[in-house]
């Protein structure tokens, strides 16, 4: 399974992705949770109190030599993607491995090399080892560019609001234009309060809605306390809805 969560900022991508990754790992699957947002997010939803991932060293990318073709920066040929993940990811609860691409921490350290290396490593991961669950930054910048095309399934997280629907519609349109391998693109309704919300999101995005995650005060409280939803409120309706989503998506997982 290679599944990316996308959608407008604040729609609930990290909370859903973190809960999804933990649930999948509890079933005994190898889960790599990846985060390509320069601001922190997924670590908390996975249940990591601090994100102390080792930085990917600058030497992981090398510059094109004179006379060579292709992009200016490439993955150092000495870096094996599977070994890189072992080395530069950290362990989260339930055995999830958490791999992120470098955070803006306010100091002057440049992280663009780390971010390029991350992108190569994820794109070059061999099939059949990891179930990859990705939390992409909000908006349309990464979803269908080189940052998101490792995914074979894209779940667009949409709230029943005009702005979230507009973002969902744009993401669905971009998915249609994507020249890469055909992806499954579906919607997850988030913060649902009204029985008509799911229908509104299906009509508004043109996507099949594969889960309806209800608005849940327990999730908001988990955010306030910086705790993973699955730890703070394992029996909450929202966590239960994500567990159903895992079941639904599980036909292509790697154990």
């Amino acid at each position: 399974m290679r599944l990316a969560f996308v959608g407008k900022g604040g729609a609930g991508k990290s909370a859903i992705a973190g809960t999804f990754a933990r649930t999948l790992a509890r079933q005994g699957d190898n889960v790599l949770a990846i985060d390509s947002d320069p601001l922190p997010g997924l670590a908390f939803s996975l249940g990591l109190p601090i994100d102390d991932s080792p930085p990917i060293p600058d030497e992981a990318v090398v510059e094109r030599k004179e006379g060579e073709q292709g992009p200016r920066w490439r993955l150092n040929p000495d870096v094996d993607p599977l070994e890189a993940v072992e080395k530069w990811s950290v362990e989260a609860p339930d055995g999830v491995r958490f791999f992120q691409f470098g955070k803006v921490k306010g100091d002057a350290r440049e992280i663009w090399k780390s971010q390029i290396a991350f992108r190569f490593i994820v794109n070059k991961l061999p099939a059949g080892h990891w179930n990859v669950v990705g939390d992409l930054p909000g908006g349309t910048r990464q979803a269908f560019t080189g940052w998101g095309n490792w995914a074979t399934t894209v779940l667009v997280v949409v709230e029943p609001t005009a702005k979230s629907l507009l973002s969902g519609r744009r993401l669905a349109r971009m998915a249609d234009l994507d020249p890469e391998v055909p992806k499954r693109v579906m919607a997850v309704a988030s913060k649902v309060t009204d029985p008509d919300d799911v229908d509104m999101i299906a009509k508004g995005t043109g996507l099949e809605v594969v889960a309806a995650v209800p608005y849940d005060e327990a999730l908001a409280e988990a955010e306030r306390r910086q705790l993973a939803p699955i730890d703070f409120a394992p029996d909450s309706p929202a966590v239960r809805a994500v567990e159903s989503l895992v079941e639904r998506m599980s036909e292509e997982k790697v154990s």
Partner: protein
Amino acid sequence: MKLAVVGKGGSGKTTTSSVIARTLAKAGSAVVALDCDSNPNLGISLGVGDEETERLVSMRQALDEGEEAHAPTWDTLIGRYGSDGPDGVRLAVVSRIDNPEPG
């Protein structure tokens, strides 16, 4: 006054911006509301509706596509590519990502 609103996704930047813009305009100021998000949706919060938000040709796209032969002035761009919203707020969109790109 030149005021930028920033913050994490979903924290309320667009809503805050739109209320500031309309409040200033109601008080009689000339206000340009500039949507700098590559996934622009300020139009919805300002009250121009999602169809008009989608219709707005982004200024950068127009420049990229060569509709503007010479670097035009700020007033020209805002006049040509902006849209009038409630309370006289002039809305303009800086850019929009429309196309996927191969990796």
